[in-house]
């Protein structure tokens, strides 16, 4: 009985840890859970489009906590995650959230920020370590991805005079379609891929660096 209890406690703790880290994909709720029913926070209300961050190496803070990483991470993106909520996301129609040919902040609220903790190469161009605003101009068949130096600004006002880098990347279908906008890194032979996906569209930005 004692052993069983210990088992159960261990199991509970481990599952709690894992669930705290990441919910299984199937449990993604289309709207933030119970957010609307909370009393308004008088100090700093919760954002409807929650902020999130992604590291490369993937899950760096967890790996560091587990003693698997001691060096600096390579990259980090901080962005907010709007929800589809039944809307048309990419397109040419008047009610498209991300209109073809128009700059989009790759998220919501503040401009999306990408930090490189070491120098990287994107499309043959050296990008010095540091932080940048990253935004996109989506089209049906490609996205233009832009790095911009005008940090710490609200994303609706993008000042293109601060652009330092621009490249086109192809789009591909996102399966399954995503309710919540997502930016995440994944491993690649040359370094990392930055995956940006929402609804049924996915775009991938290859980032090279020496490992």
């Amino acid at each position, binding site marked *: 009985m004692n052993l069983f209890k210990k088992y159960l406690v261990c199991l509970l703790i481990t599952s709690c840890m894992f669930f705290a880290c990441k919910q299984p994909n199937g449990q993604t709720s289309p709207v933030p859970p119970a957010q609307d029913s909370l009393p308004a926070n008088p*100090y700093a209300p919760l954002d409807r489009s*929650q902020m999130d961050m992604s590291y490369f190496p993937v899950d760096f803070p967890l790996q560091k906590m587990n003693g698997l990483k001691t060096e600096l991470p390579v990259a980090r993106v901080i962005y907010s995650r709007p929800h589809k909520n039944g809307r048309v996301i990419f397109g040419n129609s008047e009610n498209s959230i991300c209109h073809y040919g128009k700059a989009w902040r790759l998220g919501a609220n503040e401009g999306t920020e990408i930090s490189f903790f070491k120098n990287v190469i994107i499309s043959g161009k050296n990008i010095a370590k540091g932080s940048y605003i990253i935004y996109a101009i989506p089209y049906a068949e490609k996205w233009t991805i832009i790095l911009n130096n005008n940090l710490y600004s609200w994303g609706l006002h993008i000042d293109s005079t601060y652009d330092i880098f621009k490249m086109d990347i192809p789009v591909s279908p996102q399966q399954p379609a995503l309710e919540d906008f997502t930016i995440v890194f994944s491993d690649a032979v040359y370094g990392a891929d930055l995956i940006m996906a929402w609804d049924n569209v996915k775009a991938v930005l290859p980032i090279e660096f020496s490992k």
Partner: protein
Amino acid sequence: MKSIILASCLFFCTSLFAQSKIPAIDKSPMDMSYYPNNYPLLKISDKATEPMVARVIYSRPQKNGREIYGDLLEYGKLWRLGANEATEIEFYQNVTINAVKIKKGRYTLYTIPNADKWTIIVNKENDTWGSFRYDEKKDVVRMDVPVQKTDEPADAFFMYFDKINYTSFNLIAGWDNAKVAFPIILN
């Protein structure tokens, strides 16, 4: 009983494998606060009259009917001052905290809550998860601040900056019915 264990193990494993690399929305959403307050909005409307000094990035656990102090947060025990990733504060210029000069850069915040005071800890180990690997040797400064009552209980943990005067400001952190003000002085 064995079958219960086996079933839970199986369930646990399948949910692990079912994870894709697309992260779900966090239960405790991340948020950020700037000093000066709302700096990004001020900046795009040309209303920023002072340079940016600080930014905190934290996750916001919610009370959800739980007892917070002395229960979920045990008195005298280290807490990551948020949820998920360790809470990060970045100073964009040098500042002074509790008479210690702090160089601009990124730091991690922790706290040790007590009924009457919280110990706020600024630590230089960044990009980590929670407080599981907290190393006291990497502390930059510690400061005890008295606990105040919130005007209204806050369901979501909150952090924001509050101006004291032209040379100093507070980082306010609070949850439920308690909050603290942590003074930061501009050099």
